[in-house]
């Protein structure tokens, strides 16, 4: 049987990014006797332990936290990998932006624009097929030249590079004096 208190504690452990301590729980549930809280929490944890569910509550760092079970590790990692593939780090985003707006560019040009070495980010973008190598620059050391790929356009839903917002347009959106309207 689920009591409202047990349900509430379940919600709170669920949204908590850090292990939820008994102390914090008591502070949030002001007015509820500490003994009741403890009893409901114990019961909840026992439910998850015996129910044979996919997730369980673990005790770490003096608090409670939801966690997946070790048995599901392989699939969980696979899912997160798929999800991660669809996302970019901020360094990746910045590098991609530099290439998109300044192409064709070399690694050292990208690094100069960003002010930091971008070799690693370029590698990631190549792996994600968002950029491609289109040749070498006629310059000392013949550096590789990069451009964004067709996948890049597809990913952003653009027909061509002309559809990228211009610097002026973005400046206008970002510098709009005060968002009177929002």
């Amino acid at each position, binding site marked *: 049987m689920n009591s409202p208190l047990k349900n509430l504690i379940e*919600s709170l452990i*669920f*949204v*908590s*990014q850090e292990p939820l301590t008994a102390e914090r729980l008591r502070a949030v549930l002001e007015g509820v006797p500490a003994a009741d809280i403890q009893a409901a929490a114990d019961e909840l944890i026992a439910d998850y332990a015996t129910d044979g569910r996919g*997730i369980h509550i*673990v005790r*770490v760092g003096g608090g409670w*936290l*939801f*966690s*997946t079970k*070790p048995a599901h*590790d392989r699939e*969980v*990692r696979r899912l*997160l990998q798929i999800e*991660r593939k*669809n*996302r*970019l*780090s*901020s360094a990746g*985003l*910045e590098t*991609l*932006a*530099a290439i*998109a*707006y300044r192409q064709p560019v070399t690694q050292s040009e990208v690094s100069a*624009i*960003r*002010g930091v070495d971008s070799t690693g980010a370029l590698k990631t973008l190549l792996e994600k097929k968002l950029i491609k190598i289109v040749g070498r620059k006629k310059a000392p050391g013949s550096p590789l030249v990069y451009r964004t790929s067709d996948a890049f356009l597809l*990913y*952003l*839903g*653009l027909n061509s590079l002309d559809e*990228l*917002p211009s*610097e002026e*347009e*973005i*400046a206008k*959106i*970002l510098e709009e004096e005060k968002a*009177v309207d*929002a």
Partner: protein
Amino acid sequence: MPETAAETLPIEESPVPSPSAESPEGYQVRLEIFEGPLDLLLFLIRKKKIDIHDIPIAAITRDYLDYLDRKTEINLDREAEFLFIAALLIYIKSQMLLPRETDLAEHEDPRQGLVNRLLEYEKVKAACSLLREREDGQIVQWKRDFIPPLHGENELEPVELSLFDLAESFFLMMKRRSADDTRTIRGRDVSIEVKMKELVGLLQERHMIDFLEYFEAHASLEEALVSFFCILELVKSRVAVAVQDELFQTIRVWLRKDARRTGAHE
């Protein structure tokens, strides 16, 4: 960040609605100010129980202007837009007063454009009240957008890619860079001497330079600024003439006739 609705999408606080605005009577007793001109017009039309397809323009224009005079009920940041619709109402009124030989056909009704806009806006407003209900139902259901602990390592916090992020990222990067450029302007390789020669050469070749065009063709802010200094210098030493027809318009630069023959300025 434990919640999608309020954390990754930090939704701005809206003014706490007054009890009257939440009452079932809706707009009828609203105390809030009118956001825009269409909002005010719809309010007037409803207050007078007017058929939106047959608006008595003269009367509604008078009411509308009365509200503008009071100003307390309108969003003053939007005054120009309120005035624009006032002008439109007056224009429609004048159109309707023009003597016609035949009756106006349906599609010739000068009110039609405005009526269509009001009907569309009315729908958007109605949709808003439904979407607001959904929003209210959703913001009390908390989602989690962090990865719960796994066995082993945790990787970097990822960021989602959008076109806006991409463009914004680039714009901010450029802004950062131009800030760097202005600080180190003297140390760079674009010297005034070199630029001066380039400019004089260009003036001899073309006789006239559109400065804005020239400015835009330059990659860095630094180079553009050096060019600007050069032009000031050329004008000061009476080698060139610079003309700006109007404030904020482009500057056109000519070589003086005597300088054109003698070549480079020394």
